[in-house]
């Protein structure tokens, strides 16, 4: 994989002021993510994983510290500029899918491109079709979210995150609502995408999901306590090893 740094955070701090108290969710976090990495961000509940991911996703700004995405320093950016960065450089996958109800899978996937002036409606259509193909749901393109299983909905959400060709895909507990089998299927998909060169940062608190990634950043109380590459297990193999559903 290449060595270009996609994400660089330096001494990132984030304080929340609630009434008279200050919650220090991040207390100085520094790390880089390079092109092609598949990083899991782990930690116990309340350790600041979501807070960190929101900042990485330009939804939130740090209290102090600097964050660069694709070479752009975020602290100087206006709200509108941040929207453009989210639109062009980031793909989000949420725990609860967040698809638009009563909107077809295809239209859900097209959504980010709707906010991009440079994409014509024909291109948008083609790109959305392609993204659905990558997650293996071409045959469900006209299905509404309520006609899809949770795993399929999450695949649509992944397709939506892929469609704008982001520099990084950010996922917050993307398998949190899914059973083991479906989680493994999603991880298989993410591994495939990673092999194709996609950079992914994946928040989870489950070690048996994190083991499919190639690097783990461990957070505790707003500090990075461990940041080490690991040898990723193959999700496809783990999926094959699961007892099949027909057994009972």
């Amino acid at each position, binding site marked *: 994989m290449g060595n270009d740094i996609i994400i660089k955070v330096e001494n990132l701090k984030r304080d929340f002021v609630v009434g008279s108290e200050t919650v220090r969710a991040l207390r100085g976090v520094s790390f880089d993510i390079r092109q092609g990495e598949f990083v899991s961000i782990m930690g116990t509940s309340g350790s600041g994983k979501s807070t960190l991911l929101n900042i990485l996703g330009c*939804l939130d700004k740090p209290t102090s510290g600097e964050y660069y995405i694709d070479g752009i320093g975020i602290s100087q950016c206006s709200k509108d500029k941040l*929207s453009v960065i*989210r*639109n062009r450089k980031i793909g989000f996958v949420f725990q609860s899918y*967040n698809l638009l*109800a009563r909107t077809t899978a295809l239209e859900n996937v097209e*959504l*980010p491109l709707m*906010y991009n*002036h440079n994409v014509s409606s024909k291109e948008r259509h083609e790109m959305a079709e392609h993204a659905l193909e990558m997650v293996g749901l071409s045959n469900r393109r006209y299905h509404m979210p309520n006609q899809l299983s949770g795993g399929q909905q999450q695949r649509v959400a992944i397709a939506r995150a892929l469609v704008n060709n982001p520099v990084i895909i950010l996922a917050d507990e993307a398998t949190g609502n899914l059973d083991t089998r479906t989680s493994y299927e999603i991880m298989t998909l993410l591994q495939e995408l990673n092999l194709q060169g996609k950079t992914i940062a994946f928040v989870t608190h489950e070690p048996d999901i994190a083991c499919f990634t190639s690097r783990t950043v461990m957070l505790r109380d707003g500090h990075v306590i461990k940041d080490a590459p690991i040898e990723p297990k193959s999700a496809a193999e783990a999926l094959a090893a699961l007892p099949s559903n027909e057994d009972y």
Partner: protein
Amino acid sequence: MRLYNLLKIAYTALMRNKMRAMLTMLGIIIGIASVISMVSLGQSSQLSIRESISSTGTNMIMVMRAFRRPGVNIGNDNVQTLKMADCVAIRKGAKNVDLISPTVSSSGQLIRGSKNWPSTIEGVSTEFLTIRKYELESGTNFTEEHINTYAKVCLIGQTVVDNLFEPDENPVGQDIRFGKIPMKVIGVLKEKGQNQMGQDQDDIVIAPYTTVQKRILAIDYLHMITASAVSEEATDAAVAEIESILRAQHRLLPGEDDDFDVRTQAEMLEMMSSVSGFMTILLAAIASISLIVGGIGIMNIMYVTVTERTKEIGLRMSIGAKGRDIMLQFLCESTILSLIGGVIGIILGLVISYVASYLLSWPYVVSQASVALSFVVCAATGIFFGWYPAKKAASLDPINALRYE
């Protein structure tokens, strides 16, 4: 974001909740329909007044006795200020006056055989028919000879014919009685319809003024003088001439009030249309209140929508929608609601005013201005009442919005 995309998003959002969209629109529909129909009906009534006034002759001048005199109010019956001599003087002296007729009138019961009908008899000169634009359907007008001999002859209107005669009878040549006085019908007037005051102009008996003065009322003064100016433009000049002649006739000193009143149809027209114009404005004002209520309905629903779709807003923001995009999306929704409502309302309003003016047999007027204005008002309503909810949506924090349940 492209306009087409915006419209598409707004449209899909509205279609997700058809019933609610429809009910919200109903407010606007009712508001616009009532504004349109009120304005249109107001204008129809104005036009119908104008038409009926010009059907009685726009150059008509009426000289009435003045009922107000200094000191005691002696009641209008006893005001005897208008005489035949005044009529003669005007005819001689007023160059702008074309035709002139003394007028005395009395109401009473018309009797023929077993039928009877309450009506009014107008004692006039031979010129009256032309001044008031009455035409004869059959028979002839009376002559100077009839006037000189106090002849007991009369012309009758259609309403009188309908009430005293069988449908297949020819009234001309027949005798009827006005109270105790027998009169011969020598002509029947063409139907004329109602005048601007809603009076039936066909419920009339016309006779020589001398007959009415001497045989019915036993008076020697006139109730009124009816005249016509040589043209509509000459009306004001004719009025001035009549006023100065009458003041001289009545020997009024400078500074003394007139003991007569000169009225013209043009004045009537102005007065009536200003009254109905005011009514139109009043009705339109009341109707626009319902439009405001409709607008508030939109605002209410937009607030609900924004709250309901907080999560969607968060998602859109997280994938790159700017505050402005979100704002436009919701503004677009409220504007679509009000515009569709407005179009339906305009159509409904036009239908209502068409049916109403048909039933009232008024002319049907479509005021392009009011239609165009309603359309603008609709769009403005959508934007105005959609503004705050949209602003609220746009200012949401994406993280909180995404977390919203």
